[in-house]
């Protein structure tokens, strides 16, 4: 365990060192992120014209979903994308050999090797939006409620990670599937809106095939205090399920890894 924490510390410090080299990048990212959030809120506002609602969600409630989406997108940009897009390169260049030889879990290494600090403000921005919308709604957060929120957000982050990892790990077989993560990214962006705003078919898909419902809608319901007590357990269960799946998939995939040029 200590070895893992030590490794994690080294990963973080080198990543910050690299980021300092490219300060322009950081500024651009922050501007783009503020633009993206304002744009999404503007598009969202179009649905609330003349007292309309969006899938029975009020404006402030829908803002909570936007906030959670922004937070998760921040996690994607900070940790998931910078790490998982490298898997395809490890396979293509054969450098996965070096990873496998290290006395450290390979899934841990490929998932947390680096991180991009420029995604951090987005996490803060998302959290701020959630807190603002809660204030507007008059939601009072006690300790009990706060613990539940942290648990459900952690669960949805783990679910999100596992889906990303599952798609990225297919590059062990098909080097050409990196673009599949772009498809995933496009589909995941449907999490900007409550799942009840979609047609029945999509609602079914987003609940039972791709767990988008559990990424943003369910946590928002728990924050508002709208959901039954069971939802949090289902959220945890989904996270455990997808994480185990990603774990088994990785172990299975490594059996097929034959290194480059062999």
């Amino acid at each position, binding site marked *: 365990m200590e070895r893992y924490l030590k490794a994690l510390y080294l990963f973080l410090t080198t990543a910050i060192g690299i980021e300092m080299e490219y300060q322009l990048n950081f500024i*651009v*990212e922050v501007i783009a992120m503020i633009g993206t959030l304002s744009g*999404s809120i503007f598009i969202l506002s*179009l649905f609330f014209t003349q007292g*309309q609602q969006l899938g029975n969600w009020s404006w402030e409630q829908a803002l909570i979903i936007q906030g959670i989406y922004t937070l998760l997108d921040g996690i994607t940009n900070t940790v998931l994308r910078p790490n998982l897009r490298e898997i395809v390169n490890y396979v293509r260049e054969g450098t996965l050999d070096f990873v496998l030889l290290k006395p450290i879990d390979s899934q841990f290494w490929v998932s947390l090797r680096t991180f991009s600090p420029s995604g951090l403000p987005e996490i803060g921005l998302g959290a701020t939006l959630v807190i603002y919308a809660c204030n507007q709604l008059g939601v009072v957060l006690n300790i009990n409620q706060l613990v539940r929120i942290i648990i459900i957000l952690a669960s949805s982050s783990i679910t999100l990670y596992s889906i990303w990892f599952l798609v990225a790990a297919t590059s062990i077989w098909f080097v*050409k599937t990196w*673009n599949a993560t772009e*498809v995933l990214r496009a589909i995941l962006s449907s999490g900007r809106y409550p799942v009840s705003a979609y047609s029945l078919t999509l609602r079914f898909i987003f609940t039972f095939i791709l767990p988008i419902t559990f990424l943003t809608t369910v946590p928002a319901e728990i924050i508002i205090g709208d959901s039954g007590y069971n939802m949090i357990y289902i959220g945890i269960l989904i996270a455990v399920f997808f994480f185990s799946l990603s774990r088994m998939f990785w172990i299975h995939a490594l059996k097929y890894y034959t290194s480059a040029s062999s």
Partner: protein
Amino acid sequence: MSYSKLKINVIKALFNSQYANMLEYRVEIALWALSGVLPFIMLSIWKESGAATSYGFDGLSLSRYFLSAFLVRQFSVVWVVFSFEEDALLGKLSPYLIQPLHPLWRYLAAHIAEQVTRLPFALLITFTFFLFNTDSFWIPSLIQFLLAWLSTLFAFSIAFLLQSIIASLCFWNEKASSLERLLFTPYLFLSGLLAPISSFPPNIQKIVLLTPFPYMINFPANILSGLAENIFIGFIIQIIWISILFPVVILLWKAGVRNYTAMGA
């Protein structure tokens, strides 16, 4: 060295080699085509939302608009800044600069070859769309189709020129490609990919119509779906944008090449 005299055989050779190259990447291009599903996701929300009627849309016009937006996007995707950055970083750019052919032609050929490769996948997605939305099926008139095609070509040109401006900035700073994000963000929200421009509040609409973005998706999509009103004015504005951006690209590029000192030099 004259860039303007492009011979037919050069064009042919460029296109054929790029097309052969793109065919190698069919799987990627299919996935890339599929990653353009965003308009369909938005269509589902717009159809379910009561707000659409207050903007004067019904299910039919929404379906046609968003399918058209999807198609226009498919044939106006530009990634020149990313190819350029890679070529500049790996030093591939230097030999291109020596050749008596403006490197931008090479990128242009790559984009057109990619669009040809993408065509069957885009058609397949369109076919699937109609399979699930049979009632929204329509065949635009020949004139409508040709105008939509032309305006999509102009939309592609605007996108290509805008990105070439950022690509030229890479001559000064190799990380300039990150500036593309500042272009993509307003494009995403103001082009009409997520919502038809006519649903924007009137004041915002006026400002947005002064930017090039609505002419990159909304205008061609409106023509294709039969919603367009001022086709003539739209074309004029597209041509104005192209004639503003074209000289900027040429000048920036010239200044950039003078400033360029190859990687590792």
